[in-house]
């Protein structure tokens, strides 16, 4: 009976609506009752998380078809519907999203900010939009939600960021992404006019001429590459991260960066296989340049968040290398690295947030010898630094290793350059950790001595568990996505 109940009531529209309902309830509560607001926000997001776990349990990993499919009418004339579904690839992104948002709400728990209610509402709306992005199987609606995620993020960065530069950063963030996306909109319209539908499942079976494919691929690339971010258009990321509040950075690094690569995985590669083959060397070149360039740039940074932001860029470009290698290891590894990066980078941003909360500065030169006063923090920071460096035993290793295996089989030079990024990754991550934690305690600058409090340990614990679980026993994750990934590879090879 429980099974029946689950099947009747648990579906994707419910999942998307849950946070929205939470925010609607929050609208009616006066701003003064901050504790109630926080509690309701946390409950709504936790409920969504549990909901997504139910979806995971119910997920059938043996088929590559989309599951929990539903279709709601939107524009009947052009036959565009809210066509939602999950397969092995999107399942984990949905879970990642619902996992990260309660943490974000927990981060803002101490109520020291203004507009507390709006903060939580913004995060909840952002959550439902992000889940919608990962579920949508209709091209136009994917685009709508893809862009609409920018709105709450713009507000989060602009209102709750920490410095005056935040306005400029928010504008930069918004306009960069929007500019690329205009091309994607044109491409979608072209597809609509040519094939008469924007439904993904139908589009997967239509054949487009190679020239048309190339043109559409470039347009999609324009949009997704900004989000990934790939090298020429990555500048928005460090700015946005530095200016965003801690929870905003967590969402940005954890999920928004995945939107770009998810778009590649879901739309560019399956729909335009010949163009993908054509452009793979291009992507490889850009990604290899990006990994080495950003890793080297990280060594020169002085702002903690910028260092981690550039490291995010390096990891995401490793993901694109993996994604464009047409074998299971490459794509599976890239998905795993995406998930792991969502956990690890978010955890690192949380670490930086902990430091920022105490000392109100993010410049590395003011930190040193923190292990004397904050030993628990040092342990946690060390663990996530190791995860960032892809130490075996953490999830990043599995992802990175599989990507390198996959890439090596395609093009060994690229794999070599990507592995070079591994050394550089160790260099900057460890250097950062060393400067901040070891050495002499800089008593001139550091006046607060409190180690992590219970709430902060609670925040880090799920990340720790997630990284270790994925690192030591990734089979659970790999099995779930296996069928969908092999389907993708087959589809790509077929044409």
């Amino acid at each position, binding site marked *: 009976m429980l099974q029946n109940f689950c099947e009747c009531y648990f579906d994707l529209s419910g999942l998307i609506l849950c946070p929205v309902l939470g925010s609607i309830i929050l609208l009616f509560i006066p701003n003064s009752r901050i504790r109630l607001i926080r509690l309701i926000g946390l409950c709504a997001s936790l409920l969504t998380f549990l909901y997504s776990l139910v979806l995971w349990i119910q997920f059938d990993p043996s088929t590559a078809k989309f599951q929990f499919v539903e279709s709601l009418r939107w524009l009947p004339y052009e036959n565009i519907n809210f066509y939602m579904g999950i397969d092995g690839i999107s399942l984990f992104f949905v879970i990642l999203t619902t996992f990260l948002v309660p943490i974000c709400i927990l981060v803002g728990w101490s109520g020291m900010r203004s507009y507390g209610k709006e903060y939580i509402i913004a995060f909840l709306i952002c959550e439902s939009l992000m889940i919608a992005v990962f579920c949508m199987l209709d091209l136009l609606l994917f685009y709508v939600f893809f862009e609409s995620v920018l709105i709450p993020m713009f507000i989060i960065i602009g209102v709750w960021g920490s410095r005056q530069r935040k306005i400029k950063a928010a504008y930069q963030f918004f306009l960069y992404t929007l500019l690329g996306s205009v091309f994607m909109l044109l491409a979608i319209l072209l597809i609509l006019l040519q094939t008469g539908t924007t439904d993904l499942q139908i589009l997967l079976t239509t054949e487009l001429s190679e020239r048309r494919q190339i043109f559409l691929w470039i347009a999609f690339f324009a949009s997704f590459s900004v989000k990934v971010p790939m090298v020429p258009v990555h500048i928005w990321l460090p700015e946005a991260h530095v200016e965003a509040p801690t929870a905003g950075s967590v969402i940005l690094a954890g999920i928004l960066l995945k939107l770009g690569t998810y778009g590649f995985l879901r739309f560019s590669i399956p729909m335009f296989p010949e163009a993908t083959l054509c452009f793979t060397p291009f992507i490889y070149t850009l990604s290899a340049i990006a990994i080495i360039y950003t890793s080297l740039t990280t060594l020169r940074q002085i702002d903690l968040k910028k260092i981690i932001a550039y490291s995010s860029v390096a990891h995401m470009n490793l993901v694109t290398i993996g994604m464009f290698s047409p074998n299971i290891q490459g794509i*599976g590894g890239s998905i795993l690295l995406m998930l792991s990066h969502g956990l690890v980078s978010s955890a690192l941003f949380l670490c930086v947030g902990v430091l920022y909360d105490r000392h109100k500065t993010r410049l590395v030169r003011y930190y040193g010898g923190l292990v004397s006063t904050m030993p628990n923090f040092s342990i946690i920071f060390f663990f996530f630094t*190791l995860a960032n460096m892809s130490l075996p035993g953490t999830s990043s290793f599995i992802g990175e290793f599989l990507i390198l295996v996959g890439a090596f089989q395609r093009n060994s030079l690229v794999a070599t350059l990507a592995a070079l990024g591994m050394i550089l990754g160790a260099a900057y991550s460890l250097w950062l950790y060393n400067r901040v934690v070891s050495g002499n305690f800089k008593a001139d600058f550091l006046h607060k001595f409190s180690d992590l409090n219970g709430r902060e340990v609670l925040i880090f614990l799920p990340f720790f568990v997630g990284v270790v679980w994925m690192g030591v026993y990734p089979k659970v994750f790999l099995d779930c996505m296996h069928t969908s990934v092999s389907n993708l590879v087959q589809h790509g090879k077929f044409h």
Partner: protein
Amino acid sequence: WIIPFLTLAVPILIGLGLLLVPPATKSIRRIWAFPSVLLLSIVMVFSTNLSIQQINGNSIYQYLWSWTINSDSSLEFGYLIDSLTSIMSILIATVGMMVLIYSDNYMSHDKGYLRFFAYMSFFNTSMLGLVISPNLIQIYIFWELVGMCSYLSIGFWFTRPSAANACQKAFVTNRVGDFGLLLGILGLYWIAGSFEFRDLFDIFNDSIDNIDNNVLNSSFAILCASLLFLGAVAKSAQFPLHVWLPDAMEGPTPISALIHAATMVAAGIFLVARLLPLLTVIPYIMNLISLIGVITVLLGATLALAQKDIKRSLAYSTMSQLGYIMLASGIGSYRAALFHSITHAYSKALLFLGSGSIIHSMEPILGYSPDKSQNMVFMGGLSKYVPITKATFLLGTLSLCGIPPLACFWSKDEILNNSWLYSPIFAIIASSTT
């Protein structure tokens, strides 16, 4: 599988204890040495047992457990026990046990006592896991873990900036080697389609027979093998990547004894020894290995003469001896290389522990800064005061020099013999730096 994971229990327990009940855990700190030593001695008993079985029957156990399965490839986790493994595990277990017993007293006054034992036990775990690995992936995993342990251990006294710099230097240099190792692994996977040692050996043996057919194969194989060797170079402090070893003396002396005498530097040797059947078919690699070995020998010995710090001169001496071992592997005398690595491990551990005792005795006089207490210029004529240490230190030094009938004589002699057969130049260089 009991072998590595038994010692893992200790750091986990210590860690949990420190997290959950810090006052209680810290008050019984001296007692924590006991389970460490106990578990390690259990491991030693096991490994002795195994090696006796090996000597008698020469049976090879292998057990594999599937870790991840894709349709194309599956990574497996398990263990492989053969003669090489059992010897190495006895080595690690015994040296580790001695060092643990020593460090109980050495670190007794140190505030980070518990952390020290946690690191040591974790290090033992990783090292043991390394030697029982059945495939390259597992070696890589434990290789990196050993590197991480060395980072933690060298930077044990993290408030000293020089220690902080040193541990980072060690890890990053190690990472450069890991880059080579990983690429070598991937390359071998591409050629051979598998990570398992047995499969690799079979495929390589087969491909020797038709080596004339695929010339491309052989140059790529050379590249892969040299990349793998790069990993060993970094770990065993051979010539280009030896820079971390002298600075690694910032760690406490038992750590130096464990890491740099016995185990971690032996990890590189182990890798080369494990892959020797693979490498012997590629003459270029063997030349390369022996060349780098000889350079290291010369470099280490020369630099050791110019040192004032006890531990640093021992570090350079370690480097030189490792060069010997690499040289022996490079010329193909597998037995000599392993024999020398075992004898060297014991002798060097003895020397380090002896130097630790000297340092401790100098400290009340000269002060606690390592610049002073480790400085050999201030020492001299100590035999009146520390006769036991003097005797043991002398034994260790003589042994290392290769004076008969002490241990290293037999192994060094064999290396020198074999290197003469291989190339007289090498032998002249090698014997001149003894």
